[in-house]
Protein backbone atom coordinates (compact mmCIF):
# COMPACT_ATOMS: atom_id res chain seq x y z
CA UNK A 1 0.00 0.00 0.00
CA UNK A 2 1.33 3.43 -0.88
CA UNK A 3 1.65 6.20 1.66
CA UNK A 4 -1.32 8.52 1.72
CA UNK A 5 -1.00 11.42 -0.70
CA UNK A 6 2.16 10.08 -2.31
CA UNK A 7 0.64 9.11 -5.63
CA UNK A 8 1.68 11.72 -8.17
CA UNK A 9 -0.45 12.91 -11.06
CA UNK A 10 0.82 14.07 -14.44
CA UNK A 11 -0.67 17.37 -15.49
CA UNK A 12 -0.57 19.37 -18.72
CA UNK A 13 -1.42 23.06 -18.50
CA UNK A 14 -1.16 25.88 -21.03
CA UNK A 15 0.45 28.75 -19.17
CA UNK A 16 0.54 32.11 -20.94
CA UNK A 17 0.19 30.25 -24.23
CA UNK A 18 3.04 27.81 -23.50
CA UNK A 19 2.33 24.10 -23.03
CA UNK A 20 3.73 22.96 -19.68
CA UNK A 21 3.85 19.62 -17.94
CA UNK A 22 4.56 18.56 -14.39
CA UNK A 23 4.20 15.61 -12.05
CA UNK A 24 2.48 16.75 -8.86
CA UNK A 25 1.34 15.24 -5.60
CA UNK A 26 -2.25 16.14 -4.64
CA UNK A 27 -1.45 18.62 -1.88
CA UNK A 28 0.65 20.79 -4.19
CA UNK A 29 -1.12 24.09 -4.84
CA UNK A 30 -1.41 25.64 -8.29
CA UNK A 31 0.72 28.52 -6.96
CA UNK A 32 3.45 26.05 -5.96
CA UNK A 33 3.71 24.46 -9.37
CA UNK A 34 3.71 27.85 -11.09
CA UNK A 35 6.48 29.18 -8.89
CA UNK A 36 8.59 26.14 -8.12
CA UNK A 37 8.20 23.84 -11.12
CA UNK A 38 7.84 26.41 -13.86
CA UNK A 39 9.77 29.31 -12.35
CA UNK A 40 6.91 31.79 -12.72
CA UNK A 41 7.55 33.63 -9.48
CA UNK A 42 5.45 36.65 -10.43
CA UNK A 43 2.52 34.94 -8.72
CA UNK A 44 2.94 35.85 -5.05
CA UNK A 45 1.62 33.89 -2.10
CA UNK A 46 0.41 36.08 0.75
CA UNK A 47 -2.08 34.63 3.21
CA UNK A 48 -2.42 31.15 1.67
CA UNK A 49 -6.08 30.94 2.62
CA UNK A 50 -7.81 33.05 0.01
CA UNK A 51 -8.13 36.32 1.91
CA UNK A 52 -5.49 38.58 0.33
CA UNK A 53 -5.85 37.86 -3.39
CA UNK A 54 -2.09 38.27 -4.07
CA UNK A 55 -1.90 34.90 -5.84
CA UNK A 56 -4.78 35.60 -8.24
CA UNK A 57 -4.25 34.11 -11.70
CA UNK A 58 -6.71 33.45 -14.50
CA UNK A 59 -7.86 29.88 -15.07
CA UNK A 60 -9.73 29.48 -18.35
CA UNK A 61 -10.19 33.24 -18.36
CA UNK A 62 -11.66 33.58 -14.88
CA UNK A 63 -9.85 34.86 -11.80
CA UNK A 64 -8.84 32.20 -9.29
CA UNK A 65 -6.77 32.23 -6.15
CA UNK A 66 -3.81 29.99 -6.94
CA UNK A 67 -3.57 29.11 -3.22
CA UNK A 68 -7.09 27.64 -3.26
CA UNK A 69 -6.62 25.33 -6.23
CA UNK A 70 -4.62 22.17 -6.24
CA UNK A 71 -2.22 21.92 -9.17
CA UNK A 72 -3.79 18.61 -10.17
CA UNK A 73 -7.09 20.44 -10.71
CA UNK A 74 -5.54 22.65 -13.37
CA UNK A 75 -4.84 19.69 -15.66
CA UNK A 76 -6.09 20.53 -19.15
CA UNK A 77 -6.78 24.18 -18.40
CA UNK A 78 -5.43 27.48 -19.65
CA UNK A 79 -3.70 29.60 -17.03
CA UNK A 80 -2.66 33.24 -17.34
CA UNK A 81 -0.20 34.82 -14.91
CA UNK A 82 1.31 38.27 -14.59
CA UNK A 83 4.27 37.17 -16.73
CA UNK A 84 1.84 36.84 -19.64
CA UNK A 85 0.82 40.49 -19.56
CA UNK A 86 3.90 41.81 -21.31
CA UNK A 87 3.87 41.70 -25.09
CA UNK A 88 6.34 39.82 -27.28
CA UNK A 89 8.90 42.64 -27.14
CA UNK A 90 8.75 42.88 -23.36
CA UNK A 91 6.55 45.99 -23.46
CA UNK A 92 4.27 46.47 -20.48
CA UNK A 93 0.52 45.92 -20.63
CA UNK A 94 -1.40 49.26 -20.69
CA UNK A 95 -2.61 48.56 -17.16
CA UNK A 96 0.96 48.01 -16.00
CA UNK A 97 2.00 51.27 -17.70
CA UNK A 98 -0.79 53.08 -15.90
CA UNK A 99 0.25 51.52 -12.58
CA UNK A 100 3.77 52.79 -13.18
CA UNK A 101 2.82 56.31 -14.23
CA UNK A 102 0.21 56.72 -11.49
CA UNK A 103 2.37 55.27 -8.68
CA UNK A 104 -0.18 52.52 -8.10
CA UNK A 105 2.31 50.28 -6.36
CA UNK A 106 4.85 50.62 -3.61
CA UNK A 107 6.26 47.32 -2.36
CA UNK A 108 4.62 45.50 -5.27
CA UNK A 109 3.74 42.33 -3.40
CA UNK A 110 0.01 42.54 -4.08
CA UNK A 111 0.44 43.96 -7.60
CA UNK A 112 0.39 40.76 -9.69
CA UNK A 113 -2.86 39.61 -8.08
CA UNK A 114 -4.41 43.03 -8.48
CA UNK A 115 -3.37 43.23 -12.14
CA UNK A 116 -4.78 39.80 -12.96
CA UNK A 117 -8.05 40.53 -11.14
CA UNK A 118 -8.41 43.78 -13.06
CA UNK A 119 -7.41 42.32 -16.43
CA UNK A 120 -10.21 39.77 -16.11
CA UNK A 121 -12.65 42.41 -14.89
CA UNK A 122 -11.86 44.93 -17.64
CA UNK A 123 -12.35 42.29 -20.35
CA UNK A 124 -16.00 42.04 -19.25
CA UNK A 125 -16.49 45.63 -18.01
CA UNK A 126 -14.28 47.86 -20.17
CA UNK A 127 -15.52 51.18 -18.71
CA UNK A 128 -16.23 50.77 -15.00
CA UNK A 129 -17.08 53.60 -12.61
CA UNK A 130 -14.87 54.35 -9.64
CA UNK A 131 -17.32 52.56 -7.33
CA UNK A 132 -17.32 49.50 -9.57
CA UNK A 133 -13.52 49.45 -9.63
CA UNK A 134 -13.42 49.55 -5.84
CA UNK A 135 -15.92 46.70 -5.68
CA UNK A 136 -13.90 44.69 -8.20
CA UNK A 137 -10.83 45.23 -6.02
CA UNK A 138 -12.55 44.27 -2.76
CA UNK A 139 -10.95 40.82 -2.80
CA UNK A 140 -7.38 42.11 -3.09
CA UNK A 141 -5.52 43.59 -0.15
CA UNK A 142 -2.82 46.22 -0.56
CA UNK A 143 -1.16 47.45 2.62
CA UNK A 144 0.89 50.26 1.05
CA UNK A 145 -1.08 52.43 -1.31
CA UNK A 146 -4.47 53.07 0.22
CA UNK A 147 -5.87 52.03 -3.20
CA UNK A 148 -6.35 55.62 -4.37
CA UNK A 149 -3.63 55.45 -7.01
CA UNK A 150 -4.68 51.97 -8.09
CA UNK A 151 -8.21 53.18 -8.76
CA UNK A 152 -6.82 56.18 -10.66
CA UNK A 153 -4.66 53.90 -12.80
CA UNK A 154 -7.66 51.77 -13.72
CA UNK A 155 -9.72 54.85 -14.54
CA UNK A 156 -6.92 56.03 -16.82
CA UNK A 157 -6.94 52.77 -18.74
CA UNK A 158 -10.73 52.57 -18.77
CA UNK A 159 -11.08 56.14 -20.05
CA UNK A 160 -12.95 57.25 -16.94
CA UNK A 161 -12.92 60.73 -15.36
CA UNK A 162 -9.66 61.23 -13.54
CA UNK A 163 -8.92 63.30 -10.51
CA UNK A 164 -6.40 65.92 -11.68
CA UNK A 165 -3.00 65.23 -10.12
CA UNK A 166 -2.69 67.30 -6.96
CA UNK A 167 -0.54 70.42 -7.55
CA UNK A 168 2.98 70.29 -6.19
CA UNK A 169 3.55 72.56 -3.27
CA UNK A 170 5.56 75.16 -5.22
CA UNK A 171 3.05 75.34 -8.06
CA UNK A 172 0.16 75.63 -5.63
CA UNK A 173 1.77 78.61 -3.96
CA UNK A 174 2.27 80.40 -7.23
CA UNK A 175 -1.34 79.83 -8.33
Amino acid at each position, binding site marked *: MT*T*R*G*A*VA*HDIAVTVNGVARRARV*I*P*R*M*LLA*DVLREEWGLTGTHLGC*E*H*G*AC*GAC*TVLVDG*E*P*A*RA*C*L*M*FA*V*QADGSRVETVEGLVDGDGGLHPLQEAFRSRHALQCGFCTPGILM*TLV*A*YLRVHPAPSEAEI*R*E*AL*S*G*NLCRCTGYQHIVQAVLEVAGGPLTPPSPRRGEGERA
Partner: protein
Amino acid sequence: MRPAPFDYVAPRTVDEALDLLARHGDEAKVLAGGQSLVPMMNMRLVRPAVVVDLNRVATLGALREDAGGLRLGALVRQHALERDGRVARAAPLLAEAAPLIGHLGTRARGTVGGSLVHADPAAELPACMIALDAVFHLQSARGARACRAGDFFRGLLTTALEPDELLVEIELPGPSASPGPAAPPGSAARRTGHGFAEVARRHGDFALVGACAVVALDAGGVCRQARLVMFGAGDRPHLARAAAALVGERPGAARLAEVGRAEAGEIEARDDLHASARYRRHVAAGLAARALGQAVARAEAA
Protein backbone atom coordinates in the same frame (compact mmCIF):
# COMPACT_ATOMS: atom_id res chain seq x y z
CA MET B 1 0.79 26.25 5.18
CA ARG B 2 0.07 23.29 2.97
CA PRO B 3 -2.62 20.66 3.52
CA ALA B 4 -1.81 17.37 5.20
CA PRO B 5 -1.28 14.64 2.61
CA PHE B 6 -4.41 13.26 0.96
CA ASP B 7 -5.33 11.08 -1.97
CA TYR B 8 -7.07 12.80 -4.85
CA VAL B 9 -9.79 11.37 -7.06
CA ALA B 10 -11.72 13.14 -9.81
CA PRO B 11 -14.80 11.13 -10.81
CA ARG B 12 -16.45 11.86 -14.17
CA THR B 13 -20.01 10.95 -13.21
CA VAL B 14 -22.30 11.36 -10.21
CA ASP B 15 -22.46 7.57 -9.79
CA GLU B 16 -18.67 7.32 -9.61
CA ALA B 17 -18.65 10.11 -7.02
CA LEU B 18 -21.33 8.34 -4.96
CA ASP B 19 -19.38 5.07 -5.05
CA LEU B 20 -16.32 6.89 -3.75
CA LEU B 21 -18.32 8.49 -0.93
CA ALA B 22 -19.89 5.12 -0.05
CA ARG B 23 -16.43 3.61 0.15
CA HIS B 24 -14.70 6.39 2.08
CA GLY B 25 -17.54 7.99 4.07
CA ASP B 26 -16.26 10.29 6.82
CA GLU B 27 -12.67 9.97 5.59
CA ALA B 28 -13.53 11.77 2.35
CA LYS B 29 -14.24 15.41 1.64
CA VAL B 30 -16.02 16.62 -1.46
CA LEU B 31 -14.22 19.39 -3.32
CA ALA B 32 -16.40 21.75 -5.35
CA GLY B 33 -15.18 25.35 -5.73
CA GLY B 34 -12.72 24.94 -2.87
CA GLN B 35 -13.18 28.45 -1.53
CA SER B 36 -14.06 27.17 1.96
CA LEU B 37 -12.59 23.67 2.00
CA VAL B 38 -9.12 24.52 0.72
CA PRO B 39 -8.48 27.34 3.26
CA MET B 40 -9.51 24.92 6.00
CA MET B 41 -7.20 22.28 4.55
CA ASN B 42 -4.34 24.78 4.18
CA MET B 43 -4.73 25.66 7.86
CA ARG B 44 -5.07 21.94 8.67
CA LEU B 45 -8.40 22.46 10.36
CA VAL B 46 -9.58 19.65 8.09
CA ARG B 47 -7.44 16.66 7.13
CA PRO B 48 -9.39 14.42 4.78
CA ALA B 49 -7.76 11.15 3.72
CA VAL B 50 -9.40 11.43 0.31
CA VAL B 51 -10.53 14.46 -1.66
CA VAL B 52 -13.27 13.75 -4.18
CA ASP B 53 -13.08 16.55 -6.75
CA LEU B 54 -16.43 17.11 -8.48
CA ASN B 55 -15.10 19.58 -11.04
CA ARG B 56 -14.90 16.91 -13.78
CA VAL B 57 -18.55 15.88 -13.37
CA ALA B 58 -19.97 17.97 -16.19
CA THR B 59 -23.64 17.30 -15.43
CA LEU B 60 -23.36 19.02 -12.04
CA GLY B 61 -22.66 22.36 -13.70
CA ALA B 62 -25.97 22.60 -15.52
CA LEU B 63 -28.37 25.49 -15.01
CA ARG B 64 -31.80 25.17 -16.59
CA GLU B 65 -35.26 26.67 -16.50
CA ASP B 66 -38.04 24.36 -15.44
CA ALA B 67 -41.74 25.28 -15.33
CA GLY B 68 -41.04 28.92 -14.56
CA GLY B 69 -38.53 27.92 -11.91
CA LEU B 70 -34.88 27.00 -12.02
CA ARG B 71 -32.79 23.93 -11.56
CA LEU B 72 -29.25 24.62 -10.47
CA GLY B 73 -26.65 21.88 -10.60
CA ALA B 74 -24.69 21.88 -7.37
CA LEU B 75 -21.56 22.95 -9.23
CA VAL B 76 -23.04 26.10 -10.80
CA ARG B 77 -20.54 28.85 -9.97
CA GLN B 78 -21.68 31.68 -7.77
CA HIS B 79 -20.87 34.27 -10.43
CA ALA B 80 -23.40 32.64 -12.77
CA LEU B 81 -26.10 33.89 -10.41
CA GLU B 82 -25.17 37.50 -11.18
CA ARG B 83 -24.46 36.98 -14.88
CA ASP B 84 -27.12 34.59 -16.14
CA GLY B 85 -30.34 36.26 -17.29
CA ARG B 86 -32.33 33.14 -16.42
CA VAL B 87 -31.49 33.62 -12.74
CA ALA B 88 -32.50 37.29 -12.87
CA ARG B 89 -35.83 36.20 -14.39
CA ALA B 90 -36.72 33.18 -12.29
CA ALA B 91 -34.94 33.90 -9.00
CA PRO B 92 -34.08 37.62 -8.86
CA LEU B 93 -33.33 37.34 -5.13
CA LEU B 94 -30.31 35.18 -5.95
CA ALA B 95 -29.13 37.62 -8.62
CA GLU B 96 -29.32 40.44 -6.09
CA ALA B 97 -27.52 38.55 -3.32
CA ALA B 98 -24.77 37.13 -5.53
CA PRO B 99 -22.53 40.23 -5.80
CA LEU B 100 -22.31 40.24 -1.99
CA ILE B 101 -20.91 36.71 -1.78
CA GLY B 102 -17.17 37.01 -1.27
CA HIS B 103 -15.28 38.64 -4.12
CA LEU B 104 -14.95 38.36 -7.90
CA GLY B 105 -12.14 35.86 -7.60
CA THR B 106 -13.94 33.63 -5.12
CA ARG B 107 -17.31 33.77 -6.90
CA ALA B 108 -15.70 32.65 -10.14
CA ARG B 109 -14.67 29.37 -8.45
CA GLY B 110 -17.09 29.07 -5.53
CA THR B 111 -20.21 27.02 -6.21
CA VAL B 112 -23.83 27.31 -5.15
CA GLY B 113 -23.91 23.76 -3.78
CA GLY B 114 -20.62 24.22 -1.96
CA SER B 115 -21.89 27.26 -0.09
CA LEU B 116 -25.07 25.43 0.92
CA VAL B 117 -23.30 22.30 2.14
CA HIS B 118 -20.65 24.32 3.98
CA ALA B 119 -23.53 26.05 5.84
CA ASP B 120 -21.71 29.05 7.20
CA PRO B 121 -24.36 30.83 9.30
CA ALA B 122 -23.42 34.21 7.82
CA ALA B 123 -23.54 33.08 4.19
CA GLU B 124 -26.13 34.60 1.89
CA LEU B 125 -27.18 31.59 -0.18
CA PRO B 126 -28.57 29.33 2.58
CA ALA B 127 -30.90 32.13 3.73
CA CYS B 128 -32.01 32.94 0.18
CA MET B 129 -32.77 29.27 -0.49
CA ILE B 130 -35.03 29.12 2.58
CA ALA B 131 -36.79 32.34 1.56
CA LEU B 132 -37.35 30.88 -1.93
CA ASP B 133 -38.46 27.55 -0.44
CA ALA B 134 -35.94 25.66 -2.57
CA VAL B 135 -35.79 21.89 -2.63
CA PHE B 136 -32.39 20.21 -2.42
CA HIS B 137 -31.96 16.93 -4.25
CA LEU B 138 -29.58 14.65 -2.40
CA GLN B 139 -28.15 11.39 -3.67
CA SER B 140 -26.13 8.55 -2.26
CA ALA B 141 -25.36 5.04 -3.43
CA ARG B 142 -28.33 4.06 -1.21
CA GLY B 143 -30.77 6.19 -3.19
CA ALA B 144 -32.11 9.68 -3.73
CA ARG B 145 -34.14 11.97 -1.50
CA ALA B 146 -35.36 15.55 -1.51
CA CYS B 147 -34.95 17.94 1.39
CA ARG B 148 -36.54 21.35 1.69
CA ALA B 149 -34.08 24.16 2.35
CA GLY B 150 -35.90 24.93 5.59
CA ASP B 151 -35.08 21.45 6.92
CA PHE B 152 -31.52 21.26 5.61
CA PHE B 153 -29.58 23.61 7.90
CA ARG B 154 -29.15 22.12 11.36
CA GLY B 155 -26.56 24.34 13.02
CA LEU B 156 -23.10 25.83 12.69
CA LEU B 157 -21.55 24.22 9.56
CA THR B 158 -24.00 21.36 10.04
CA THR B 159 -26.63 20.11 7.60
CA ALA B 160 -28.95 17.16 7.02
CA LEU B 161 -26.47 15.75 4.50
CA GLU B 162 -25.08 12.30 5.42
CA PRO B 163 -21.35 11.59 4.90
CA ASP B 164 -22.08 9.38 1.88
CA GLU B 165 -24.53 11.84 0.33
CA LEU B 166 -24.05 14.47 -2.34
CA LEU B 167 -26.13 17.58 -2.92
CA VAL B 168 -26.76 17.15 -6.64
CA GLU B 169 -29.31 19.76 -7.65
CA ILE B 170 -31.22 22.71 -6.24
CA GLU B 171 -34.81 23.15 -7.40
CA LEU B 172 -36.26 26.64 -7.20
CA PRO B 173 -39.98 27.14 -7.70
CA GLY B 174 -40.92 29.97 -10.07
CA PRO B 175 -42.02 33.28 -8.57
CA SER B 176 -45.68 32.38 -9.03
CA ALA B 177 -45.40 28.75 -8.01
CA SER B 178 -44.37 29.39 -4.42
CA PRO B 179 -46.50 27.68 -1.80
CA GLY B 180 -48.99 29.55 0.32
CA PRO B 181 -52.72 30.03 0.09
CA ALA B 182 -53.79 29.87 -3.53
CA ALA B 183 -55.29 32.97 -5.06
CA PRO B 184 -59.06 32.75 -5.40
CA PRO B 185 -60.13 31.48 -8.83
CA GLY B 186 -60.62 34.24 -11.34
CA SER B 187 -58.37 36.73 -9.53
CA ALA B 188 -55.38 38.13 -11.36
CA ALA B 189 -52.08 36.33 -11.05
CA ARG B 190 -50.12 36.92 -7.87
CA ARG B 191 -47.35 39.44 -8.02
CA THR B 192 -44.11 38.56 -6.31
CA GLY B 193 -41.30 40.75 -5.03
CA HIS B 194 -38.07 40.15 -3.18
CA GLY B 195 -35.90 42.13 -0.81
CA PHE B 196 -32.37 41.77 0.48
CA ALA B 197 -30.39 43.77 3.04
CA GLU B 198 -27.25 43.03 5.01
CA VAL B 199 -24.64 44.73 7.15
CA ALA B 200 -21.01 43.65 6.73
CA ARG B 201 -17.76 45.31 7.73
CA ARG B 202 -16.53 45.56 4.17
CA HIS B 203 -17.92 44.63 0.78
CA GLY B 204 -17.70 40.86 0.39
CA ASP B 205 -17.24 40.10 4.07
CA PHE B 206 -19.57 37.69 5.76
CA ALA B 207 -22.63 39.54 7.03
CA LEU B 208 -22.89 40.53 10.69
CA VAL B 209 -26.62 40.30 10.12
CA GLY B 210 -28.66 39.98 6.96
CA ALA B 211 -32.27 39.66 5.90
CA CYS B 212 -33.97 38.42 2.77
CA ALA B 213 -37.65 38.34 1.97
CA VAL B 214 -40.08 37.11 -0.65
CA VAL B 215 -43.60 38.57 -0.68
CA ALA B 216 -46.55 37.73 -2.93
CA LEU B 217 -49.53 40.07 -3.25
CA ASP B 218 -52.81 39.46 -5.01
CA ALA B 219 -54.35 41.89 -7.50
CA GLY B 220 -55.91 43.88 -4.64
CA GLY B 221 -52.57 44.31 -2.88
CA VAL B 222 -53.41 41.81 -0.16
CA CYS B 223 -50.45 39.76 1.04
CA ARG B 224 -50.77 36.10 0.04
CA GLN B 225 -47.34 34.96 1.13
CA ALA B 226 -44.48 36.46 3.13
CA ARG B 227 -41.24 34.68 3.84
CA LEU B 228 -38.54 36.50 5.78
CA VAL B 229 -35.22 34.83 6.62
CA MET B 230 -32.53 36.31 8.86
CA PHE B 231 -28.90 35.19 8.75
CA GLY B 232 -25.55 35.96 10.33
CA ALA B 233 -26.90 36.42 13.85
CA GLY B 234 -27.22 32.86 15.13
CA ASP B 235 -25.83 29.47 14.17
CA ARG B 236 -28.09 29.04 11.12
CA PRO B 237 -30.59 31.04 9.03
CA HIS B 238 -33.91 31.72 10.75
CA LEU B 239 -37.29 31.71 9.01
CA ALA B 240 -39.39 34.39 10.70
CA ARG B 241 -42.72 33.26 12.09
CA ALA B 242 -43.78 36.88 12.52
CA ALA B 243 -43.77 37.46 8.77
CA ALA B 244 -46.33 34.74 8.11
CA ALA B 245 -48.87 36.82 10.06
CA LEU B 246 -48.79 39.36 7.21
CA VAL B 247 -50.87 37.03 5.04
CA GLY B 248 -54.30 38.57 4.50
CA GLU B 249 -53.08 42.09 5.31
CA ARG B 250 -52.11 45.10 3.22
CA PRO B 251 -48.90 45.75 5.10
CA GLY B 252 -47.62 49.32 5.46
CA ALA B 253 -44.27 50.54 6.72
CA ALA B 254 -45.29 50.68 10.38
CA ARG B 255 -46.54 47.10 10.29
CA LEU B 256 -43.34 45.90 8.61
CA ALA B 257 -41.27 47.65 11.26
CA GLU B 258 -43.32 45.85 13.90
CA VAL B 259 -42.64 42.49 12.22
CA GLY B 260 -38.93 43.39 12.09
CA ARG B 261 -38.87 44.09 15.83
CA ALA B 262 -40.75 40.87 16.56
CA GLU B 263 -38.30 38.85 14.49
CA ALA B 264 -35.31 40.56 16.12
CA GLY B 265 -36.63 39.26 19.43
CA GLU B 266 -37.02 35.73 18.04
CA ILE B 267 -33.58 35.19 16.55
CA GLU B 268 -30.67 33.69 18.34
CA ALA B 269 -28.00 36.40 18.32
CA ARG B 270 -24.42 35.69 19.30
CA ASP B 271 -21.74 37.90 20.78
CA ASP B 272 -18.42 37.72 19.01
CA LEU B 273 -15.38 39.71 18.02
CA HIS B 274 -17.30 41.45 15.26
CA ALA B 275 -20.49 42.56 17.01
CA SER B 276 -22.45 42.19 20.22
CA ALA B 277 -25.69 40.25 20.37
CA ARG B 278 -27.48 43.49 21.28
CA TYR B 279 -26.13 45.25 18.21
CA ARG B 280 -27.11 42.30 16.02
CA ARG B 281 -30.70 42.40 17.30
CA HIS B 282 -30.89 46.15 16.83
CA VAL B 283 -29.67 45.92 13.25
CA ALA B 284 -31.78 42.84 12.54
CA ALA B 285 -35.01 44.72 13.26
CA GLY B 286 -34.13 47.42 10.74
CA LEU B 287 -32.85 45.04 8.07
CA ALA B 288 -35.92 42.82 8.34
CA ALA B 289 -38.24 45.78 7.84
CA ARG B 290 -36.11 47.01 4.94
CA ALA B 291 -36.05 43.65 3.14
CA LEU B 292 -39.80 43.23 3.60
CA GLY B 293 -40.46 46.79 2.47
CA GLN B 294 -38.43 46.24 -0.70
CA ALA B 295 -40.25 42.99 -1.38
CA VAL B 296 -43.68 44.60 -0.94
CA ALA B 297 -42.78 47.58 -3.12
CA ARG B 298 -41.46 45.31 -5.88
CA ALA B 299 -44.54 43.10 -5.72
CA GLU B 300 -46.73 46.21 -5.99
CA ALA B 301 -44.78 47.37 -9.03
CA ALA B 302 -44.73 43.93 -10.68
